[in-house]
């Protein structure tokens, strides 16, 4: 597959933000469109730098973070949020860019987490230096993830639309059942798999080293973002986008959408597996929950909450969702809630109820998601800024 970067600035900004109306953008002239990516680039790098030095600072945001930013608890939460954001980003590439509504994305996340966990255990008796074992486990897991993605993808992509969603759901369900069934004691069943730390580098083990895990999570997020950006701006990305909008027209032009969709499927799934490996190291274990259809639905909720049409929407969604989930759980156990009458107390003590309701409200009244808010304010449009979802259904 030819993956050349398109270097013409106006074209790339157009595709990057998926701006609904290219006309006003084009009118602004060349200077604005060449300056914007540069500003975005600098802003992005600055953001990453700020996030990277966060463990060295003592910033407190009461109500949002459980404590100052250097404490392991906060870093753990932030790292988890970034991994979920990375996962959401990979899902957005599949659902938002290529229009593939998959209900099986959790399978690949779980494949990364469980694959690495099992590989570490399998290699443990081998007489290699532990760094080599760790690296070999990662490589084996990656290969496993790619093979799994290729298998599922080649089968599932033979059908489209709802049938595609169902085939991916079926595979994910099969994976979830396998993990719960605990074949040969390999997955730990309902108890989950705990990380065998014998061959994990010391820097990634223990509460004191949470900041290293935090940097690892940040690294994974940046890596996933760059890969997604690269794919999205490549020719394959443009073909995927075109296929989402009108598959027939792409076929008429003489391009085979299947290969591009297959490629996107594999890349997105592999990225999910990478996020899964980070998850295993961060949580020092894997729970069967991450393989369920509910988990995929959660990712879907995150992507839609953040805004399907925007790449950073998935990141914002992932972080907002994780923080909300965590803080709402804390709120649910607080004295304030316990003092309320039952009518208010029962719904408010269930974080998922609040998140689900919030999600319904966003779908109904804020179709661009959180990331679409600035666009809506700027244009004052009441309509959906990106009508990408309709094509996915066709």
């Amino acid at each position: 597959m030819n993956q050349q970067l398109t270097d013409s600035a106006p074209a790339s900004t157009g595709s990057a933000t998926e701006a609904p109306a290219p006309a006003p953008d084009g009118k602004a002239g060349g200077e604005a469109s060449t300056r914007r990516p540069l500003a975005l680039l600098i802003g992005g790098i600055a953001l990453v730098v700020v996030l990277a030095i966060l463990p060295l600072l003592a910033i407190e945001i009461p109500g949002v973070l459980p404590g100052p930013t250097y404490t392991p608890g906060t870093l753990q939460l932030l790292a988890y949020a970034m991994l979920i954001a990375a996962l959401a980003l990979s899902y957005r590439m599949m659902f938002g860019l290529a229009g593939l509504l998959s209900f099986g994305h959790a399978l690949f996340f779980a494949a990364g987490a469980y694959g690495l966990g099992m590989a570490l255990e399998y290699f443990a008796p081998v007489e290699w230096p532990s760094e080599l074992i760790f690296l070999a486990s990662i490589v084996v897991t990656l290969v496993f993830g790619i093979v799994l993605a290729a298998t599922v993808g080649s089968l599932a992509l033979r059908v489209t639309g709802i049938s595609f969603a169902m085939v991916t759901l079926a595979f994910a369900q099969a994976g979830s059942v396998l993990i719960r069934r605990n074949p040969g004691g390999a997955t730990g069943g309902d108890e989950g798999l705990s990380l065998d730390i014998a061959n994990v580098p010391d820097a990634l083990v223990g509460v004191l080293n949470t900041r290293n895990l935090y940097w690892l999570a940040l690294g994974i997020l940046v890596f996933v973002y760059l890969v997604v950006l690269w794919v999205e701006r490549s020719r394959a990305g443009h073909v995927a986008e075109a296929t989402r909008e009108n598959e027939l027209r792409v076929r008429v032009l003489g391009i085979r959408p299947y290969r591009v969709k297959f490629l996107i499927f594999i890349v997105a799934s592999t990225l999910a597996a990478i996020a899964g490996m980070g998850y295993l190291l961060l949580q020092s274990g894997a729970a069967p929950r991450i393989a369920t259809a509910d988990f995929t639905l959660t990712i879907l909720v995150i992507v839609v909450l953040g805004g399907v049409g925007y790449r950073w929407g998935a990141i914002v969604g992932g972080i907002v969702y994780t923080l909300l989930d965590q803080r709402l759980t804390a709120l649910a156990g607080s004295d304030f809630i316990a003092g309320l009458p039952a009518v208010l107390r029962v719904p408010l003590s269930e974080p998922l109820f609040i998140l689900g309701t919030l999600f319904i409200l966003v779908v109904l009244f804020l179709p661009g998601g959180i990331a679409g808010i600035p666009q809506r304010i700027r244009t004052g449009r009441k309509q959906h800024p990106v009508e990408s979802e309709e094509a996915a259904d066709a």
Partner: protein
Amino acid sequence: MSTVLLLVITGLGLGALYFLVASGLSLIYGLMGVLNFAHGAFLTIAAFLGWEVGRRVSDGTWWGLLLSALVGMIVGAIVAAATEYFLIRRLYERHIEQALVTVGLSLASVALFEGIWGTDPIYTAKPDWLTQTTEILGAKIPNDRFLLIACAALVLGGIVLFLRRTRYGLIIRAGVENRSMVTALGIDVRRSFTLVFAIGGAAAGLGGVLASVYYGYVSAHLGSVLLIFAFIVTVIGGLGSLTGAAIASVLVAVLQQFANFYLGGTGDLVVVIALAAVLLVRPRGLMGKVA
């Protein structure tokens, strides 16, 4: 022989449960193109409210069960119709978003049920006869299977009669076949959307009460477990086809029982493999219309 018979009848009983959920799903998808993730929630709320009413009136008698079933059906129908009216209707023709709203609804409602009734399953009482077994050709068959099969057959018959003999049924059938043509003829198909949701909700509500009889408990996750299998059944049977859903429910459930017994509890996996196989060989399902 007796084992095979037991497995077949137990499979039919489970298939009856699948059918009660899948019939609504299939009709809703066929007419409106909405993949309804909230269908499990309709089932669960009906099961809970049916149980609440049933135990207050008379616990573990036939009257109690009958009342539960009635309450379940009414609750299911009302909740489903309200969902359609307040949430789905606003997103007319935006199928992905309609599905997303139902996803949100199912997440929120399961959490709410957990908040109200707790996370543990609540064991239910049922009439004595249902706890006993009947011997047919040497196979001891739990009596509640017969109740499930009878109810599902009644629902299937009722829906088929409604679709074939009434004017609304005609509109629904025509709408499944070709919605734009029906609209072009000057009939407002949207009116029948609420109706289809209510019918599907009522069937799911009855399914909820019967599921609490079959499993012996009610829990907040009753619906989500059945929903996944109902989805599989709906897709295997062909989206939009009621007979397809009926045939597929029986096939899937019997297959599941046999695999569980003879292949060491691999029923769930076998069903999933069957789904993948059917979709790859015949993407529109057994009785689905050509996409």
